[in-house]
């Protein structure tokens, strides 16, 4: 399994660079994804999205549907893309340490 070394931490990741284990998530991971996703600066809005994603994931074991993310954070989808250029699934979920959803999606 591929690993990522960043600021003295080692992360196990899947083929697309998502964390293998949610429990491995740390603030260093956020920094690492920030750089690889081309996000200039982390704002409280980024943190709001990440916190909600993690909170939802802990309660439900999956990522929230995009409309729930949008409604709860109050950010329109367009704004979420401004925050996370590769989108809520690939950018935001990756940064929050969530796995990719599977199935007919």
């Amino acid at each position: 399994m591929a690993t990522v070394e960043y600021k003295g931490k080692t992360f196990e990741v899947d083929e697309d660079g998502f964390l293998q284990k949610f429990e491995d998530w740390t603030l260093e991971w956020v920094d690492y994804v920030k750089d690889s996703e081309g996000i200039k600066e982390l704002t409280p809005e980024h943190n709001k999205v990440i916190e909600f994603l993690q909170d939802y994931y802990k309660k439900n074991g999956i990522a929230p549907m995009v409309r729930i993310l949008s409604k709860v954070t109050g950010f329109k989808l367009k704004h979420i893309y401004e925050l996370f250029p590769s989108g809520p699934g690939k950018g935001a979920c990756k940064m929050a340490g969530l796995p990719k959803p599977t199935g007919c999606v």
Partner: protein
Amino acid sequence: MAKYPPPEELIKINYSTPVKSWMDTKTPFKPGNFSYPGKPDILKYLGMPNPRVWSPTDDDWQLPPDWQRLVMEKFRSLLKKYRSFKVFMDICVRCGACADKCHFFIGGGDPKNMPVLRAELLRSIYRGEFSAAAKVLGKLAGARKLEEDVIKEWFLYFYQCTECRRCSLFCPYGIDTAEITMMARELLHEVGCNINWILEPAANCNRTGNHLGIQPHAYKDMMDFLCDDIEDITGKRIRPNVNKKGCEILFITPSGDIFADPGIYTYMGYLILFEHLGLDVTWSTYASEGGNFGLFTSDKMMKKINGKMYNEAKRLGVKWILGGECGHMWRVINQYMSTMNGPADFLETPVSPITGTKFDAASGTKMLHIAEFTADLIKNKKLNLDPSRNDNFISTFHDSCNPARGMGLLEEPRYIMKNVCRQFYEMPENTIREQTFCCGGGAGLNNEEFTETRLRGGLPRGNAVKYVRDRHGVNNLACICAIDRATLPPLCDYWAPGVGVSGVHELVGNAIILDGEKKRTTDLRQNPLPGMEDEEE
């Protein structure tokens, strides 16, 4: 994430045949032409052989030491179990009628995507082992030895088949190529060569009842969220039954539709339809998946996963089961369910409580497709419809492979479309109905890393969509499958930009006038209805 070339590059397809014979032509694995392998923890959970970390691009695939014996024993047992498999191995005369019918061949030009040659990858081993004459004559009779490269070739090409069965439609012998692919995938499981995008949903489904792994409390939460949206749009609060015993009907639909855009709007359409009818129906958080990635795994897995439909119907004490807009679900139901999980003699042949119509065609499984149910309602004038609410859509209909070729569901969705929309145009006739072209992502290939091959395979469908877009201004491609709803949006963005994707019951939900609803200003996507653009502000 896989990168892929722009359409003007991808369209340069080389249809010439290689210089060397096919047995001597190797195809390299490269990003975009394969799906990621099954993860070890998923294989372990499912009790499948040879869990390990590996990649198709590795030289050493870490096959088990006695891998040849394992494959051949399984081959022998499949031939014994399925007479059809043996017939399909023996009967092909290589006439070539199927050769140019596969969307992956049309969009990619690789001869090994001709269905006849794809099957030959397997037949060549069959001949070498199970035909006395070919054993002696070897290559002359089209036989070859089972070497590691054969396993690699099987993995590549049997995970480049979407089991859509368009080729089978043209085969004079009726060889079901989907079943050949299913057999090949079973052989590959013996040595631990499979893909995660199929196995993880199958594992989730086994654990939670649906591919996404949605647990009951989350399912209910998502359903309530969609009911909130319906209330915002219509002013009506819908309170659907969940896991309720004693209802007349159990409704089962793909989990993609409660989670992913644009499937959620189809889900809202169902909720509105049932509310409009006052239907005595329950949803289930256990039978919370119509799809069955077991179909793409093995007969054993398919049977186990599908079993929940009847188990839940029995537990809840319903009379019959209504099924939603799902593609391969209906292949499983129509083709295998009655003997595999049935007979369901505790259920009754579906009768519409609204019209009294008895659906005899569903008497085998006691499961009715929602398109048949709704078409009957419209025919009997039981729905109060305002089709002008769909006037922003100029629609066409994509026949999803399995409902079209696997159960002959051709007229009902069109009949519904024409009654809930005022602008409807068909794509060219050799791309619809039984001859429909695949979305390029069926049979568990709807994953991100496979996008380039999906887009190649999506060329014939994309080209037909582009045709009606340019000719009639079509901006909406309706379909009745959740994999379609996941795969067709990127396909349209790529080959026919400007065309969106919807389910049929999304359009039904837009058109239905609920008793006592408020004046709607938006459709289910909360886009302004025609003439309401100002009220949105």
